[in-house]
């Protein structure tokens, strides 16, 4: 699925380096081209630079060297949810639209449908602290999708959830990806998760993309399948090497 031609790439890192005033560079010479509609997963040990890469893609950081080409309109889902506790579920989901000065009429037409599709319509008037972790993450996803972003960035969104909830959210993310054609760039700390979702897994090591693994298995992927676990093992081997 890797596509190095300029024409169809929606995110493009060219010789990107990132260093802060103090200490060693966080990213070194990263080259990455993500094709429109692709689902890419970043895996790697803590401190390998995957968060910085995602933040660069989000426009939250600027590269120290090289260039990052990215669309202006980006949806991002955070590990902690990052919902605003003073707003209802509805208002949280509408937050990005209001930030972008969308007319209320449009918001009314859009947000209820979105909450419906994320299975949280009945909680519209509740506030984040009244929700479970999974429900909060659904609000976070709804908020990110509300602005119709061409790219969805996910920063370990499922790492604090129980396996059952994680499984349900995996299905939802795949469904959204297929329905909307959104490009997904996701950080995961689980190799199995990355292989079961992405069509390309990038292994990062000390600020570089160490390895790229295309995943061609059809969905839904079965973690028990021999080819699946073989690929997971290959990545794991390299991860710990």
């Amino acid at each position, binding site marked *: 699925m890797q596509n190095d031609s300029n024409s169809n790439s929606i995110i493009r890192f060219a010789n990107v380096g990132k260093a802060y005033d103090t200490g060693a560079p966080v990213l070194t010479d990263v080259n990455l081209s993500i094709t429109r509609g692709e689902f890419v997963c970043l895996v790697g040990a803590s401190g390998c630079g995957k968060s910085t890469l995602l933040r660069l893609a989000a426009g939250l950081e600027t590269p120290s060297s090289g260039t990052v080409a990215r669309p202006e309109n980006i949806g*991002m889902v955070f590990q902690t949810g990052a919902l605003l*506790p003073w707003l209802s579920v509805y208002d949280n989901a509408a937050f990005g639209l209001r930030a972008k000065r969308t007319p209320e009429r449009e918001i*009314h037409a859009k947000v209820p449908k979105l909450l419906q599709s994320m299975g949280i319509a009945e909680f519209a008037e509740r506030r984040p602290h009244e929700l479970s972790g999974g429900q909060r993450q659904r609000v976070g996803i709804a908020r990110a999708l509300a602005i119709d972003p061409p790219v969805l960035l996910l920063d370990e969104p499922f790492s604090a959830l129980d396996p059952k909830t994680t499984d349900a959210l995996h299905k939802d993310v795949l469904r959204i990806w297929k329905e909307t054609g959104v490009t997904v760039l996701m950080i995961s700390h689980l190799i199995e998760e990355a292989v079961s979702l992405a069509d390309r897994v990038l292994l990062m090591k000390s600020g570089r993309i160490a390895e790229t693994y295309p995943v061609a298995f059809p969905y839904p992927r079965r973690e028990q399948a021999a080819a699946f676990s073989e690929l997971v093992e290959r990545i794991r081997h390299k991860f710990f090497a």
Partner: protein
Amino acid sequence: MRNRSHGHRLHVSYAKSLPERLYTHVVVPAAALAITIILIQAFGTTLLAQAPAPRVVFAALGATFTRLFVSYVFAMALAIPLALFVTRSALAERVFLPLFDIMQSLPVLAFFPVIIIFFVHYGLYNGAAVFVLVITMLWSIVFSLVGGLRAIPRDVCDAGKVFGLRGFRFVRRILLPAAVPYLVTGSLLAFAGGWNIIIVAEVLHTYLPGSGPSADLFGIGSMLVNASAAGAEQTFLFAIVVLVAAIALLNLFVWQNLLTYAERFKFE
């Protein structure tokens, strides 16, 4: 379907623990009532016979409260930009926070004579008191707010930035709401300090050579000090009962409600 367009409802009741509710709604009012009854029992008859008309005392209280409130508004108007500025960058924090610390620890009243001479020179009698009150109130709000702004999770700020919020809109939609609990506690401390200082800040004549109580600002603070100096016990007691009752009522009906309201702005 939703039937309201903007999501801001003010009435939210939070479940407080029973001991907490007992304390704020039973113990505190009961104690205030008991003190009042004891004072009236002890001094009641002479108090009511010789005290100034309640109208005057309440007017003095009103004048003092207005002075406090105006000072508070000025203090807020200064504190919010100061706190936002200091927390903007690590550099600003390193340079200005120690400076604020020094300014906070300066004893305001030590400078009061100079301040009064300056303001009175321009005929701004109320200005002197308001100035001292603003200085007193400012730093509790600033430091509380700085703590609050620092405590905002990075993800939450990032969520705003990814949606393109910058500058004033970022402040209004993320920073200020997130700081509400700290604004409330800062304001509470500011008023506590204000009530404390007002006792002195209204009594301008002690700093103005050759003048008498007529140079003072009309208020409950100057009423207390002058009654005490003149040996007018009844006036003093009446005024202090009114002052204590007013502060207790403010706590019960304003601050407790604001603290409860602020809960909804807290991150987990």
